[in-house]
């Protein structure tokens, strides 16, 4: 790896890791179910960046981009189902507080 490439890689890798931390923090601390879905989105951003970065660094943008596109499609599907679940939970309990999903225990 050339120093220039290493610098670019390092910068964005650090960014991706920070976004990852932010996403996990939000996932763990939020009390709003929709926000937990948003946290998952943030986590996915980080991962997308990492994959594209890997492709860029190894000069394989074609491969990395096709992976990223598939990843985005899956992300949408998961998010739609997640939001669907949250809406259903809301229509049944009238709440989207995380304590509405703490009934299965033991």
């Amino acid at each position, binding site marked *: 790896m050339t120093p220039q490439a290493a610098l670019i890689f390092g910068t*964005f890798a650090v*960014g991706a890791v920070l976004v990852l931390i*932010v996403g996990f923090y939000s996932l763990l601390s*939020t009390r709003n179910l929709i926000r937990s879905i948003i946290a998952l989105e*943030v986590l996915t951003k980080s991962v997308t960046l990492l994959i594209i970065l890997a492709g860029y660094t190894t000069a394989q943008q*074609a491969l990395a981009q096709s992976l990223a*596109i598939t990843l985005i499609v899956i992300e949408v599907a998961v*998010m739609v189902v997640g939001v669907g679940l949250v809406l259903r939970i809301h229509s049944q309990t009238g709440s*989207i507080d995380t304590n509405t999903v703490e009934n299965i225990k033991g």
Partner: protein
Amino acid sequence: MSANVLDIALTVLLVAAAVWTVSTARMLRSVIGLAATSALLTAILFRLDSPLAAVFELSVCAGLIPAILVSAVGLTARMDDDALARRKRAKLKVFALLPVILAAAAWALVRLNVPLDFALPAAQGPGATVQTTLWNLRQADLVGQIAVLLAAAFGVVVLLKGKSQ
């Protein structure tokens, strides 16, 4: 060097947008923050010579997903603010820890002398474009995409259509 300043600026903005997304009290702002994060990611993807992924990210993640989320927030509107918002306010401070984490990690990497350099694999030929790659090499992924989208469509029908029991 100016290129690197741009890189760093984009990175910082990306992180800042993510922080704002997760720390703002209002759900609508949070969704907008997510869209902004996506837009910044798009810019970074362009910077990393990945225009197709960038366009995709922009249209789907900065367009479609926030639209869905906004409608979801709208449907659950009464829930978002007051009570939950008050709990959130203090949390912005936590993100001051991010630079500390960064510094600690850098120190650890240097201190432990972790070798980060590695041999890169040979690049593919210049002929490989996203379209050919996706169509010729990653057909299985395409089928998977179709299946997952179908599943999501059915999921909406199963989960949301009709009244709850």
